[in-house]
């Protein structure tokens, strides 16, 4: 077990985590050069395009250290976005140590701190790594100070690297071997293995990615998942070396995969503990928390014919994405669809993109909503995440909405604007503390609904890119909620209805009306767009009828060209939704639903 090191790399987004992982893998010969591609652990196109890790990946590296011994280094890749913090937690639980990556010019950011705290919570040994030292803007001394003052780590322990240039990679590997502890755990004890990830393989079913904490696991063994109380028989175990490499068994301290006849990712819970059926452990491993969706939106196919395809695609996606939830839903404006739950807005966007890209669907998504608690006059309490299921306002005693604790790191000069942003977003108890000279952390209690739209973008804008942000959901609080409907020529567009705080209702309604007026094309009649609470119109805009839409010349050569253009335009109309007699293009829904009210 002394020759094993289980570690992860934690970093703020863009600080070069995937590049460092690439270099470590290359240095250890984990992959032939000809097979190599950038961000090798990021298997989805979206991950590589957006430069973020969505699904964590794990790889076992063999490294012969300066002490002559060969070590098995298990690099447990972690996602780098707040939406996926539950995945980060689980990854951390399978490690003994972490490389904390800091960008040599950007310095310590909110996620760096948040991730450090998470790592410390799990008693990990931390090695700071300063990356991108080759950049002209690199300022290693300043970053060292920040590591000391913001993070409380020994700045002189920090390894200096440029993952891009391949500088300092051996120093990182040596630090992993010498500074991170070997795993502990009794290989003879009853089996306890943490499932920290699961992948779907169309041929083998679900592949469980595990960290064996105690005991051992081998093919033929009967296993029990302690939280779901389900039994399986192990078919195969092995190590992950980009490809799966079969092994006789996995022992305490090891990180590897287990195939045990699990059909769908949704059957199991990532975070669950595997034990032996014959000799079960007394307790599951600590820290189990189910990932619950916090953002809800309805997904509709643009063409109603695609409903079945959407259903199939969601089924398939769900095999690989346990945190996605969905159930049937129907909208008057948009037809049949699915009400889906997501971990956050990024998760929502990723699901949408994967459905569109991998399954070739054109989709419309309704306004994202959080989950509200509604207490009725008769005392019953209902949970509402879909505006169309919002009870009659007369029957409601009170409503509550979820709150988060946001921690925002910024240079001091942006304090005023960031405090103002928090105030605009209905923040409570907004406070701040200095982390170092000129840098501070703002803490604010905000309604989750207020950060759903464009909080992060706005923060980036007003702090010229210097602000960073992380959050935890804390509790539900009473809130004055109203349902805002959008009407187009008097017809309600149910997919645009939404629940908002009364103070924000007018602003939101106006925003929707204006965006619709910008994106709905003129038609042959005037179109009135209204925002209303009940029968009460609170915002409106108008789209005038066409005044001129005629090609001046249409002679011999123009006719074919004009007919083809007309055919194209008629084809485009199929991508529009009819609300009453008004054609609403998909872009209108997208434009409205995508951008927040303050952008």
């Amino acid at each position, binding site marked *: 077990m002394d020759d094993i090191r289980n570690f992860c790399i934690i970093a703020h987004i863009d600080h070069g985590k995937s590049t460092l992982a690439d270099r470590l893998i290359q240095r250890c010969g984990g992959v032939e050069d000809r097979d190599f591609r950038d961000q090798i652990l990021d298997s989805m196109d979206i991950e590589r395009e957006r430069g973020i890790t969505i699904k964590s990946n794990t790889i076992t590296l063999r490294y012969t250290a300066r002490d002559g011994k060969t070590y098995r280094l298990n690099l447990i890749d972690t996602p780098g976005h707040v939406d996926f913090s539950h995945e980060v937690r689980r990854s951390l639980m399978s490690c003994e140590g972490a490389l904390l990556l800091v960008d040599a010019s950007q310095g310590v950011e909110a996620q760096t701190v948040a991730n450090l705290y998470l790592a410390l919570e799990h008693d990990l040994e931390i090695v700071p790594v300063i990356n991108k030292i080759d950049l002209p803007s690199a300022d290693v001394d300043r970053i060292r100070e920040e590591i000391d003052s913001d993070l409380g780590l020994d700045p002189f322990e920090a390894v200096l690297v440029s993952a891009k240039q391949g500088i300092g990679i051996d120093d990182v590997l040596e630090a992993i071997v010498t500074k991170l502890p070997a795993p502990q755990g009794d290989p003879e004890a009853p089996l306890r293995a943490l499932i920290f990830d699961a992948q779907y393989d169309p041929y083998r079913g679900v592949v469980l990615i595990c960290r064996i904490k105690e005991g051992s696991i081998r093919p033929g063994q009967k296993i029990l998942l302690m939280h779901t109380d389900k039994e399986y028989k192990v078919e195969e175990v092995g190590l992950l070396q980009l490809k799966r490499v079969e092994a006789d068994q996995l022992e305490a301290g090891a990180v590897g995969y287990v195939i045990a006849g699990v059909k769908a990712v949704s059957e199991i819970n990532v975070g669950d503990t595997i034990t032996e059926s014959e000799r079960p452990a007394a307790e599951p491993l600590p820290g189990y928390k189910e990932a619950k969706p916090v953002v809800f939106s309805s997904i509709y196919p643009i063409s109603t014919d695609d409903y079945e395809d959407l259903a199939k695609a969601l089924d398939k996606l769900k095999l690989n994405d346990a945190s996605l939830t969905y159930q049937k839903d129907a909208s008057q404006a948009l037809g049949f669809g699915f009400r889906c739950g997501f971990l956050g807005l990024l998760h929502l966007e990723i699901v949408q993109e994967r459905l569109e890209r991998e399954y070739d669907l054109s989709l419309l998504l309704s306004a994202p909503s959080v989950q509200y608690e509604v207490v009725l006059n008769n005392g019953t309490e209902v949970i509402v995440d879909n505006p169309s299921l919002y009870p009659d306002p007369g029957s409601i005693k009170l409503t509550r909405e979820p709150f988060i604790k946001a921690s925002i790191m910024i240079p001091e000069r942006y304090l005023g604007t960031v405090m103002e942003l928090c105030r605009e977003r209905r923040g409570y108890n907004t406070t701040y503390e200095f982390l170092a000279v000129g840098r501070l952390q703002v803490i604010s209690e905000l309604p989750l609904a207020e950060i759903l739209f464009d909080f992060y973008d706005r923060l980036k804008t007003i702090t010229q890119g210097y602000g960073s942000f992380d959050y935890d959901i804390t509790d539900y609080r009473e809130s004055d909620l109203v349902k805002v409907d959008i009407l187009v020529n008097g017809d309600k567009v149910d997919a645009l209805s939404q629940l908002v705080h009364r103070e924000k209702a007018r602003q939101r309604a106006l925003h929707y009306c204006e965006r619709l007026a910008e994106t709905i094309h003129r038609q042959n009649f005037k179109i009135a767009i209204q925002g209303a609470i009940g029968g009460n119109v609170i915002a409106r805009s108008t789209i005038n009828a066409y005044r001129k839409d005629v090609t001046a010349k249409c002679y011999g050569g123009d*006719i074919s060209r004009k007919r083809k253009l007309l055919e194209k335009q008629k084809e485009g109309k199929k991508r529009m939704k009819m609300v009453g007699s008004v054609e609403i293009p998909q872009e209108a829904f997208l434009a409205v639903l995508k951008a927040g009210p303050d952008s």
Partner: protein
Amino acid sequence: MKPSEANPGLYLHIPFCSKICPYCDFAVLTGGPERRRRFTDHLVREISMWADERSTFQSIDTIYFGGGTPSALAQEDLTRILEAVQQNLSIRDDAWVFFEANPEDVTPESVRNWRDLGVCFLSLGIQSFDADALRFLGRRHTPEEARRSIEIARGAGFNTISIDLIYGLPDQPFEIWKRTLEQAVALQPDHLSCYQLTIHEGTPFGFRLERGKMSELPEDTQGELFLFTHSFLKDSGYPAYEVSNFARSPEHRSRHNQKYWHHVPYLGVGPSAHSFSGMRRWWNERTLKPYEARIGTGEKPIAGSEELTRSDLALETLMLGLRTVDGIDLISFRDSYGVDLLKRNEPLVERLVREGLLKVEGNVLVPTLAGLAVTDSLARVFELGER
């Protein structure tokens, strides 16, 4: 005019101009007399290639010289072309010759020459009577020359004198356009074509627009100008018969151009010219070099063609019919394309009638003036396919 009853037309594209206007996206070029003579050789040869197939376009009764600037061709070149037409194609004795000319080419001598060639319909590229507008449009004539050209032409005995005008210039005050129309009407032409300026990609105006050095008029202003132009000309005795065409009386309508809008067959010769045989449309090489090269090797310079399906023809009939005051004959539409346009689009038509864009007059669906102004949008919303 029913396609089956009407005689086909002939279009001859003369691609030369003394100067290329900055808004023009036609196939045009400048070139000296030698270049023009060589082109005439090729055009004559192309016409002769149709001799064996003259029966495809039987009894042609309109011959249209367009361009470019037909008036840029020498009399002897024009004569050679018309001789080739007479020799190789099936032309009715009473066929009308239509001819586009620029004011600067109009002299007592040139109009006499054109008359001698048999020109009945003379279309003058006046564009404006305002010096600033003419400069902006890159024209070579002055307002005075424009007026004089009309007077000279009037004495020559053409059946119809038409003048072309352009409106909707980005910085042109409304008053200037109004005065141009007043001056045009005062000169008593038989026919007017008033084109709202369209800025095409790839033209100098297009580049200016792209780089933000020129802007298009707002849609609402364009709409107002369109309506004003139509009302003004109607009140002055020139009712529109098409989106951009106005005639003193039905006899003075362009018999040739109406063929395009009624699916009457036409043969087009010269670079970029399009032809239509009733079920097929084809077009020539757009630029002069490949056009002449193809003819040089003894083949027709056809660059592409399309077979028109019944639904293609139906869509064209709809879009073209909604551009003319004759509208769409619903019965012949149903007979030809198997679609009852009204029944298939019942709530839509009701709505468009209520909005004042369409009228149903007996068995004819007719755009109103407001409907003409938005006719492209009307053509988009009709359903023609199976339910």
